[in-house]
């Protein structure tokens, strides 16, 4: 399907998410759409898939203008989107997900739906068990299921929003093969990403969005020089240098912050066996692995929110095996969850209110003046774009993450981060890491979980790989290459620690 976009504009309040976008996507090709987070990629894709309605502009399919008022219409004309977090219904089985809300013409009943699902899966080499609850599937499998569902509905334009986030190396390989095959069949594929190398690997053309507009000369034929693409994505701001690789740290003499002796974890059906580990002060430990392999269990153990099933556990040489979360906070351990607004911050509270809440000053009353002073200082130190009394929900992701950091005392013993830069643009992510590296230098032990290999390799001193309910031994960063790490995450050459 041939897709043309004319002057598409969409605003949210004062934010111009898309402004006069003009692009053309030819049939039978894979088109890359690049841009940093917040550049307007997701909005554009949602407009194409009928999730949002444009304020102005037109979309033409095969030379005909269409009004995509809702996803139902978009699906009917052959547009399907796989969201970054595939929009599946976790309580349903794979088959029910596949069948749900499909038109009767495509699948008259559950039995025929099952047949179609199996046929399509075989065609693309995906392995999906129809009767397994989707809650038990990995992100990659859910994505595969969504692709098959959209194809079964007759999608001729397939939109994939950041499809390689959170999937394994093997799944990525299968995905790319499937996409090439679909393009060869004449389908139009939009591949939305912020990863240059992936776009370079698979796309025929590339278009770059920056601040809601198409950057540069418009759509370009791949390959393009990386520097050119980077400068289009980030404008002039890219000049900041990459932080250099961490030095092989000489921490053997440093005091250990966390020490685990034969610790076993269990929560519901998830468990992690036999952890022996020593995390010294002033080091960064990265937790690698697909999402949901137990990294969160591990982080919560270190934060004192999950007690070991067996084994012993010390914090700075004090046994904390059965201590309450409060004791961990008092010992200077801080935990920052992945979803800031859902779990980390009170959206309706401002910085002042958060600082009043966290105040360690004696007395029962709120000291407003001191909280205001602290908020002012935090805004200056962390370059947060907000007033002291702005509700944090009104801030951008990067500012929220900086606010989160500002809430953690400067000199703390240990920091636990789940996906520290998820949803942040590159510059915000760098700002966050600069803060973290400064804290590391001041002697804080940092443990973070990430699905971003670059981030893991760039900042960790050592890395734990989580795979299939087991954990590797701590691997020295300097001994690891990107390929090795990717393979370990996928289970190739994975050996559990003793």
């Amino acid at each position: 399907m041939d897709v043309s976009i004319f002057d598409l504009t969409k605003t949210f309040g004062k934010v111009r998410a898309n402004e006069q976008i003009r692009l053309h996507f030819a049939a039978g090709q894979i088109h890359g759409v690049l841009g940093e987070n917040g550049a307007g990629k997701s909005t554009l894709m949602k407009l194409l898939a009928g999730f949002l309605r444009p304020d102005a502009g037109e979309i033409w399919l095969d030379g005909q203008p269409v009004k995509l008022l809702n996803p139902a219409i978009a699906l009917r004309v052959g547009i399907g989107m796989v969201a970054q977090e595939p929009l599946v219904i976790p309580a349903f089985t794979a088959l029910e997900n596949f069948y749900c809300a499909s038109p009767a013409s495509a699948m008259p009943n559950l039995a025929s739906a099952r047949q179609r699902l199996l046929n399509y899966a075989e065609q693309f080499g995906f392995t999906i068990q129809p009767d397994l609850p989707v809650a038990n599937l990995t992100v990659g499998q859910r994505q595969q299921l969504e692709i098959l569902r959209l194809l079964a509905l007759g999608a001729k334009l397939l939109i994939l929003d950041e499809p390689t986030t959170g999937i394994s190396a093997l799944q990525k390989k299968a995905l790319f093969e499937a996409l090439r095959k679909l393009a060869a069949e004449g389908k139009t594929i939009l591949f939305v990403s912020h990863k240059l190398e992936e776009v370079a690997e698979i796309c025929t053309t590339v278009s770059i969005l920056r601040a809601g507009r198409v950057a540069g000369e418009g759509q370009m034929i791949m390959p393009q020089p990386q520097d050119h693409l980077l400068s289009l994505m980030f404008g002039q701001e890219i000049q900041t240098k990459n932080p250099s690789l961490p030095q092989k740290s000489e921490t053997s003499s440093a005091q250990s912050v966390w020490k685990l002796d034969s610790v076993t974890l269990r929560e519901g059906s998830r468990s992690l066996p036999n952890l022996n580990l020593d995390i010294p002060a002033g080091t960064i430990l990265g937790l690698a692995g697909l999402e949901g392999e137990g990294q969160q269990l591990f982080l919560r153990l270190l934060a004192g929110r999950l007690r070991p099933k067996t084994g012993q556990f010390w914090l700075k040489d004090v046994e904390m095996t059965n201590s309450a979360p409060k004791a961990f906070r008092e010992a200077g351990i801080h935990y920052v969850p992945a979803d800031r607004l859902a779990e980390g911050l009170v959206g309706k509270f401002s910085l002042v209110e958060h600082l009043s809440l966290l105040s360690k000053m004696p007395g029962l009353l709120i000291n407003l003046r001191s909280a205001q002073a602290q908020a002012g200082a935090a805004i200056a130190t962390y370059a947060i774009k907000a007033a002291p009394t702005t509700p944090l929900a009104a801030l951008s992701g990067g500012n929220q993450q900086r606010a989160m950091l500002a809430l953690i005392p400067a000199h703390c013993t240990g920091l636990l981060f789940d996906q520290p830069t998820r949803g942040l643009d590159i510059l915000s992510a760098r700002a966050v890491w600069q803060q973290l590296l400064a804290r590391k230098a001041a002697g804080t032990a940092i443990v973070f979980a990430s699905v971003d290999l670059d981030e893991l390799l760039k900042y960790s001193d050592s890395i734990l790989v989580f795979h299939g309910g087991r954990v590797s031994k701590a691997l020295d960063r300097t001994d690891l290459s990107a390929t090795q790490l990717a393979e370990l995450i996928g289970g190739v050459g994975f050996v559990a620690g003793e």
Partner: protein
Amino acid sequence: MQKMRFSSLAVQNFLLTTAGTLFFTTLILLISGISPLAVYQLLFFGAFSSPSKIADLLMLAAPLLLCAAGLTLTFAAGLYNLGIEGQLTLGAIFAMLPLRLWPDLPPPLLWVLAFLAGALGGSLWAASTASLKIYAQVNEIFAGLGMNFLAMGIALYLVFGPWQRIGTASMSGTEPLPNELWLPTLPNLRLAPLAPLLALSALGIVWFLLAHTKWGISVRATGLNPIAAENLGVPTNLRLFETLFGCGILAGIAGAIQILGVFHGLIPNVSSGIGLLALLIVLLVQAQPTWLLPIVLLFASFAIGSVQLPLALNVDSNISGVLQGSLVLFALMARGIQERRQKKH
């Protein structure tokens, strides 16, 4: 500029709410073939027509304000404490205990004991709801309802069983307390000044706690985002327990006022729906302590004004409940319309 826009929005909101409510209640009255004007006159002004009416108004407003203040705490923590009716009832039952056990003690001491016992009863009941919520994950609405039924069962048992009036057991309650145990009133009025004083101090305390203490801000954090609050180091379950407990204390004191100052004995329906009415009020003001007092007085005046309706106009007094309920409903509607408009701009 910002301020002007805010106030014009508030005026719009107010007008929409009032117009909607009056339209609806007038419609209901006309359907029933009743002339609305006479009814409104009694409803709106009846409570202020004589000193004795004003006294009644204050004696209703006092327990109502106590409950509303308590519910402001639980609402700030994100709880719908529907169990307040039971908490009030248990407060009333417990307040009866010292009065029945040691009727010969000096009255002032007995009053103190009765208020303390009432607070104990209400908070015990609230603590049970809190435990069910925290340890058995029963939604506080249903835990509270269960405790309400249980409280009603106990009150019925006492009124018709061991505490029944000599000779006859009836819904009109236990043997009235001896006159000297009644809370002292102003001459010739049913107004016991202690009751509104207690209620006002409760309101002051709740306002101060929520607005100015670290505990208060942690309660609000718990109500707005319990997971984040927990991650920021707030013991959220403890906060849920504490706010329910505090609400139970205030509801229990309200129950004691019902015994000592209003009914002068235990009746099965000792709560008279005051707890639910208070919940309605808290929904209307969205747990902002500053607006609590005027709205409590307004709602109480409707209720007192409506008492005269059956005799004066042969109109059912439940119209005051219709007025109160539709007021809150239209306020929610006005708020929703406003939020929708703001979103569009």
